[in-house]
């Protein structure tokens, strides 16, 4: 059984605000919202102020930090957008996740004191808030979504930076196409305004330092705090489909083979119609971005990283969500592409619902 799969709701939050209209407006292009001071030399796209407490109970808020709150909030927006609140018990959830926030103030105390091994452990035992671990565990974004929104089907969390976001959607779409799932909620969240997070990626040397510039001329990644969740349903039974996900494919391998793998992914795409809009979720890291644009052959119509910043695990879901909004606004077809900063390539095609 191969059933067509529809995107029936989107839950979006970023530096540009929250929800459908704030993000549909980005399809015409938009100036970035930037903070170039707080994490200098690295600019970031800061998260817009969001009323987390309107949907997340206070006692749950205390168990989370910004990364989980953002993801839980955006997942709720997607359920509302699709009108699926009464079907949460059957929702199959796949989250693409990184990790949660460290207590960076405690880290800096330890770095400053530089105690011996036992002294370091003592400072951690005395200083760490016990429930912080639950805010850090990668699968607890999914766990928190289940607890706050009563999502009670299956729950899986995929790791692996950008490609995890694309693979999560591929797997959930394949489950619906195969008839083993009726309703999916899939996506990710990324909190870019974090020293601990920036540090890991800074190790890789591909963050852009200094004043912001747009892609493709920019020499590196600029992070944005953002979340994107999609609801997926069989197209034939979806009450109000936004777009049909007619194709999604992913691949991964050594960096040297990336141009060939991208070429194969493009060769596997169904025929593109005139007027097909192209949305690239290129991260900005030089090698992968160059290879992705070379495979595309033309400059994409939109770079998600220019609109909301690069959102790592949430980047590909954000591209697909913007693509679904573009279809809803009249685009005949949308191609979404993405290439991981270190590994992984993905393409997807969206069409108008029948």
């Amino acid at each position: 059984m191969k059933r067509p799969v529809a995107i029936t709701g989107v839950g979006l939050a970023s530096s540009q605000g929250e929800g459908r209209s704030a993000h549909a407006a980005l399809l015409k292009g938009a100036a970035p919202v930037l903070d170039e001071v707080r994490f200098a030399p690295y600019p970031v796209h800061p998260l817009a102020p969001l009323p987390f407490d309107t949907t997340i109970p206070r006692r749950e808020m205390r168990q989370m930090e910004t990364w989980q709150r953002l993801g839980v909030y955006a997942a709720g927006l997607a359920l509302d957008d699709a009108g699926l609140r009464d079907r949460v018990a059957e929702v199959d959830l796949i989250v693409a996740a990184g990790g949660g926030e460290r207590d960076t103030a405690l880290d800096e105390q330890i770095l400053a004191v530089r105690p011996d091994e036992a002294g370091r452990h003592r400072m951690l035992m005395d200083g760490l808030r016990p429930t912080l671990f639950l805010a850090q565990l990668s699968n607890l974004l999914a766990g928190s979504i289940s607890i706050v929104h009563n999502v009670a089907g299956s729950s899986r969390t995929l790791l692996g930076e950008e490609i995890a976001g694309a693979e999560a959607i591929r797997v959930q779409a394949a489950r619906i196409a195969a008839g083993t799932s009726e309703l999916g909620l899939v996506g990710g969240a990324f909190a870019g305004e974090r020293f601990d997070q920036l540090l890991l990626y800074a190790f890789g040397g591909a963050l852009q330092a200094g004043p912001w510039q747009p892609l493709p001329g920019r020499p590196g990644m600029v992070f944005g705090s953002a979340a994107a969740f999609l609801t997926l349903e069989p197209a034939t039974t979806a009450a109000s489909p936004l777009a049909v996900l007619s194709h999604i494919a992913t691949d991964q391998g050594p960096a040297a083979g990336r141009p060939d793998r991208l070429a194969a992914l493009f060769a596997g795409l169904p025929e593109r119609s005139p007027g097909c809009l192209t949305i690239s979720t290129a991260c900005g890291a030089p090698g992968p971005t160059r290879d992705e644009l070379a495979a595309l052959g033309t400059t994409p119509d939109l770079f998600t990283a220019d609109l909301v910043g690069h959102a790592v695990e949430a980047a590909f879901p954000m591209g697909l969500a913007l693509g679904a909004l573009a279809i809803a606004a009249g685009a005949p077809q949308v191609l979404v592409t993405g290439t991981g900063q270190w590994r992984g390539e993905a393409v997807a095609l969206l069409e108008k619902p029948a």
Partner: protein
Amino acid sequence: MRIAVTGIGLVTALGAGAEANWGALSTGRSGIRHITRFDTTGMRATIAACVDFPEDEGRAFTTAARVERLGEMVIGEALAQAGLEGPFGGPLAIGMPPVEVEWPQRLSFGVNTYPELMAAAPTAMPLYEEFLFGGASTRLAERFGTTGVPQVVTTACASGGSAIQLAVEAIRRGEARKAIAAGSDASLQPETLIRFGLLQALSTRNDPPESASRPFTLTRDGFVMGDGAGALILEEEAHALERGATILGYVLGAGEAADTFHRTRSTPDGSAIVRCMQRALDDAGLTPADIGYINAHGTSTPENDKMEAQAIRMLFGEAPPPVSSTKSMIGHTLSAAGAIEAAICLLALRHQVLPPTINQDDVDTALGLDTVPVSRPHRFTAALSNSFGFGGQNVSVVLGAGPVT
């Protein structure tokens, strides 16, 4: 379509290799000991089921590096048993823990603040590749020539079960005729031990270490962390038969159910666990009466063992099949537990012997389970392996005996 298992790889604190582990497990040996790879002065839990390596002398062998090493060992073993050389040519699904920069690395830059660390950072490419969440899995995928995106799954302590489920689903959907399903964990580093301790999840019965993990007893007081990894080579049965491979057993089905109750506790009526086990049986096309043995999640925490026993009796009745927790010997291997314990079920089915729950000198009889205090012969054709994670992520896998040879 039946999914055959043609290769098994295991590393735990009991040793390397599936048969070596079976030998130790079936004689009730414990791999739990005092931690030596870091200073445990002042810590409440000072024991674990450690898999140590020569690199531990240098004290900078990270969770990320150990996870990769353990994964490499078990996948290599499983492939060799399956008679599959060279590029594997199918997908990899692997349960792994989240990893992060650890203290020896953080301190190595000799600076006091995050901005200073970031200023020093662009010179640290090896650390970037080591600590990316997709790092270890990618190196394993490239080492063994698996296809597509390695599916690195984390559902906390259910991750290994989720990996088996992802691999089974890929084969059933026709995306591949064979897949590697694995789990690898080595979360035992100081900060993680401290974090689990702060949640009061760990046993503090440090002496003697081997008696600390005592699932289903009155004096159980928490789990014991364990390093380890397990790998299964899964194939469409026809594919295994076509190439003349020895079928070691079957993955008959899997089920999962998200619990919406609490981050670290199950719904008090046990319904989420029951739903999870029921879905696994349904997926396998079996009834509770077909299950001859349950390898419990059985962490040795007061809460888990009570809830799991209650749920087992709800589904299987007041005379459920024998239930043992091999975590009594190998500790709780977290992201690897689902894969390791599925492998143990397959070995038990092959040997027609039940592995024990050791330390049963004060069994909590209110739980109403036959916990297999001593290993014993048992005729059975199917086993259920339970894995429940923080965050309410529950997975059960049904394993079946291979053809009689």
